[in-house]
């Protein structure tokens, strides 16, 4: 019997359709149906200024907007040959790690709700709002920030932000212990999640699965360590690892990553306190700084060709490895923008970790994958 889980279904956490062939309560076959949220971001990008695309990047993955800004900005800077100043790199690490925290807390909230735990959803949303408050204080947005610019970031932190961030980090560390008590301390949680949705290391590599799912299988791959970008090579942190490759392992990896993020953020705010400086590169062309040119000036702007170039960037997004490929053929619009979404690939391997389990196991397994449909469909 085929049943449709989606597009309107509490399990999906977004807009997609999981077609499931069941035999009693056992899953025999699945077929994910994507594209319900396909907004053509790659096509629209060909029609936009480089800085205008940042707006789209926030909406590509709406739980990790700033990570995608970071991804795109790195590729665009390479394509346009712009080098950002050092303080910017630390600021970018700060916001990316805070975004990772916010995204993982959002994942926690959604995941435990799939398991039927009701209160941690509220706890997660409550703690996530504290992080969003910080984002509001220096970007102005709760969810869509438009914080980064080609060549830097829009503005520096307002005074006193670093102290407030430190306080929030202390609060969050206590809350993580509480999360663990609620989940790992519960026998039912362990019974539900152990040996569930197993995807071994070999299959992970074959199917191209990345991110916490891969590290939960024991593969030590983290682009922040392996291929350091921004200021990650100057910061101390560990890669979260687990080896059972099941839902519990993914839970443990994400919780450990959150703790590591707190560790990184503490280092970064210490650095930021002692190293003031500019946050915008000096060699950014004027038309990039002011993307909204007055009407009639487009022709003038178009003449200011920048040298051609192709930029490739890869970052460790909260969901996994994300890459951007930006082709600059001169002019103010990119010629082609191609994004690699980690969830896109993690979902394409869904058959290998869903078949054979129960129908009731689908929500926790898909919850442990952390689906963000915005970046899958783009």
């Amino acid at each position: 019997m085929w049943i449709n889980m989606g597009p309107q279904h509490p399990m999906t956490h977004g807009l997609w359709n999981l077609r499931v062939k069941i035999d009693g309560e056992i899953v025999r076959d699945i077929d994910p149906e994507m594209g319900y949220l396909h907004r053509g971001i790659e096509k629209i990008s060909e029609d936009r200024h480089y800085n205008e695309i940042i707006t789209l990047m926030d909406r590509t993955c709406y739980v990790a907007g700033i990570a995608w800004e970071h991804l795109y900005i790195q590729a665009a800077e390479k394509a346009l040959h712009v080098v950002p100043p050092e303080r910017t790199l630390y600021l970018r690490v700060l916001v990316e790690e805070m975004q990772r925290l916010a995204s993982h807390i959002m994942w926690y909230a959604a995941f435990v709700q799939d398991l039927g735990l009701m209160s941690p959803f509220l706890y997660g949303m409550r703690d996530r709002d504290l992080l969003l408050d910080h984002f509001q204080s220096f970007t102005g947005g709760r969810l869509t920030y438009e914080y980064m610019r080609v060549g830097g970031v829009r503005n520096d932190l307002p005074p006193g932000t670093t102290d407030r961030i430190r306080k929030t980090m202390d609060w969050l560390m206590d809350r993580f212990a509480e999360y663990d008590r609620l989940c790992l301390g519960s026998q039912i949680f362990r019974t539900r999640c152990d040996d569930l949705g197993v995807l071994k290391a070999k299959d992970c590599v074959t199917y191209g699965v990345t991110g916490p799912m891969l590290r939960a299988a024991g593969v030590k791959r983290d682009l922040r360590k392996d291929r350091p970008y921004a200021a990650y090579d100057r910061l101390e942190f560990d890669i979260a690892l687990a080896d059972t490759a099941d839902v519990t392992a993914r839970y443990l990896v994400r919780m450990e990553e959150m703790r590591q993020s707190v560790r990184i953020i503490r280092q970064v705010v210490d650095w930021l306190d002692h190293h003031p400086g500019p946050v915008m590169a000096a060699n950014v062309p004027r038309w990039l700084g002011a993307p909204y040119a007055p009407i009639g000036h487009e022709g003038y702007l178009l003449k200011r060709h920048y040298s051609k170039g192709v930029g490739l960037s890869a970052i460790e997004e909260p969901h996994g490895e994300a890459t951007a490929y930006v082709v600059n053929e001169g002019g103010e619009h990119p010629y082609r923008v191609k994004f690699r979404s980690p969830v896109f690939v993690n979902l394409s391997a869904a058959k290998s970790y869903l078949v054979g389990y129960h129908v009731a196991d689908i929500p926790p397994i898909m919850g442990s994958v952390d689906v963000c449909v915005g970046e899958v469909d783009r």
Partner: protein
Amino acid sequence: MSTPATPVVAAAPAVPAIPPSPTEPAITEPGVPFVEIEGLRSQQFIPAAKEALLSLLAEQGQGKVIRPVFNWAGRNSLFPLHWGLACCAIEFASAFGARWDAERFGVVPRSSPRQCDLLIVNGTVTWKVAHKLITLYEQMPEPKWVIAMGNCATGGGPFRTAYSVVPGVDKLVPVDVYIAGCPPRPEALLDGILKLEELIRERRE
């Protein structure tokens, strides 16, 4: 700045006492009951009850008795459909979080469209999902309302030029309240829901 705040209640004008209406004779003796029960026999009871019932029904015909009660009930318990489309869905979830807690107003999301009164279109609607949205809308029992949350649902938002995006959900279903913002903050969503409640009261549905 440091002067003690004057009590606001004292400053406000006192409510004037309602003067007794000249047409109605005031009841002076406290012991006299308003309706004499002793004279009410069963022969008189049935016509009296019938008359009372008929007058109630007549007023109900003008929508004065029952309808406001149901209107009050309907506007105070709006169950939205538990459906996340895009970015606004995250703010939609935030609105049910601890800080905003939309359940204060009796707003409880339900997963089945049969049990919902309110379709909150919280995100970009693509042509691929359009007919599913219409199906969901039609599965909801009357009376029902639609809130277009965010710029995408209102008019396509930043993706209005895209080939796959419906430029405004009002092309598909009738919309009662539009909420601006990309995405709107949870306060804006709550405000939209309260606006909808006012709308229901004004329309006397």
